[in-house]
C-alpha cells in the first residue's frame, strides 16, 4: 500500500516530466494508480469555479464564461498531459489526468486527501530550492500529510515540455 496511489503534480516543465521514470519504476513496488494533476493558479483561472476538469467536455463548457484563447490553452495542457500519461496506462498503471483550480499547496493537499493518495511526487529545479526560493516547494511539503518524493532537475536542463 505504500506506493499504491501516487499524486503526480505536473506543470508542463521538464522538471516535473523527470519524475515520470520514478513513478514507472514504482510499479514494481506496488504503484497501481497515478493522478496527474495540473493546478490552475488564481492568476490563470480567474473566475473558474472549483471543479475537477478531467475531460475535454468540462473544459470546453468553460467557453460560456472564459475567452476562447484561455479555453484553448487549457485544452492544449490537458491533451499534452493525456499524451504523457499514455506510458503509465501502457505499463498497467491506471491514470487520471485532471486540472484543478487553486493555490498549489492547498489544492494538492486537498486532492491528496480526497483520493487517499499514498505518495506525492514533486519535480523541482535545483534553483527553486535555493535559500531564496525554497518557500513554494516547502509550502507544498508542509501542506500534504503523505510522504513526498522530491526529484531535482538542474536549472539549465529545465524548460517547457
Amino acid at each position, binding site marked *: 500500500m505504500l506506493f499504491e496511489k501516487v499524486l503526480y503534480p505536473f506543470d508542463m516543465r521538464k522538471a516535473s516530466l523527470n519524475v515520470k521514470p520514478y513513478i514507472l519504476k514504482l510499479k514494481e*513496488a506496488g504503484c497501481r494508480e497515478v493522478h496527474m494533476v495540473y493546478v490552475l493558479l488564481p492568476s490563470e483561472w480567474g473566475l473558474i469555479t472549483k471543479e475537477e476538469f478531467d475531460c475535454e467536455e468540462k473544459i470546453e463548457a468553460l467557453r460560456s464564461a472564459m475567452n476562447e484563447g484561455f479555453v484553448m490553452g487549457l485544452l492544449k495542457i490537458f491533451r499534452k498531459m493525456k499524451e504523457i500519461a499514455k506510458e503509465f496506462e501502457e505499463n498497467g498503471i491506471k491514470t487520471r489526468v485532471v486540472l484543478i483550480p487553486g493555490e498549489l499547496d492547498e489544492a494538492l493537499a486537498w486532492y491528496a486527501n480526497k483520493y487517499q493518495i499514498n505518495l506525492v511526487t514533486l519535480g523541482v529545479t535545483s534553483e527553486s*530550492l535555493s535559500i531564496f526560493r525554497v518557500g513554494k516547494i516547502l509550502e507544498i*511539503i*508542509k501542506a500534504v*500529510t503523505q510522504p*513526498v518524493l522530491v526529484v531535482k532537475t538542474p536549472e539549465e536542463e529545465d524548460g517547457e515540455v
Partner: protein
Amino acid sequence: MPLFRKTLYATDFSPLAEVALDYVKKLKEAGEEEVVVVHVVDDLEVELPEGTDLIREKEVFKILPEVDQEYVINLIEKLNAIKEILEDEGLKVKIYLRYGNIPKQIVAVADEERVKLIVMGAHGKGLLSELLLGSVSTDVIREAKCPVLIVKRREE
C-alpha cells in the same frame, strides 16, 4: 533503470524513522539492492572534527570520555540492529555513524556513496520553523544531488 538501486536511509532512531524504514524495505521490489544507513551525532561531550567517522576511526573512539564511548557504542548497536533487519530482507547494508552538522553529513555520505535516493523522516516541527531556523529535512532536500523521499509524521 537503476533509479532506486542504492539508497541512503538517514535515521535518528525515532518512531518516524521506523516508518521511513518500511519504505526503504519496500523499495527492494523496485530494484533496490544496497542501503547505506546513516546516523549523525552532534551532541558529544567533546568537539570532534566535522565529519569524523565514529565507526571506522578507531583512534578517535579511544580518546572519547567514557560517557561518550557508552553513547557511541549504544548508537552502533542500534545501527547494527537496523543493518540486520535490512540484511534479512536480502539487502546489502553499510552503516555510518558520523559526527557533525546533521544535514551536511547526510548529504556528504550520499555523495561519497553515490546513492540514488535519500529516505528520511521529517518532523513537522522542523518543517514549520524552517523559514526562520532551517531544519534537517529541508536542508537535505536543498543540498542533496539525488532525489529525496520525505516521510512525514502522520498524526499532524
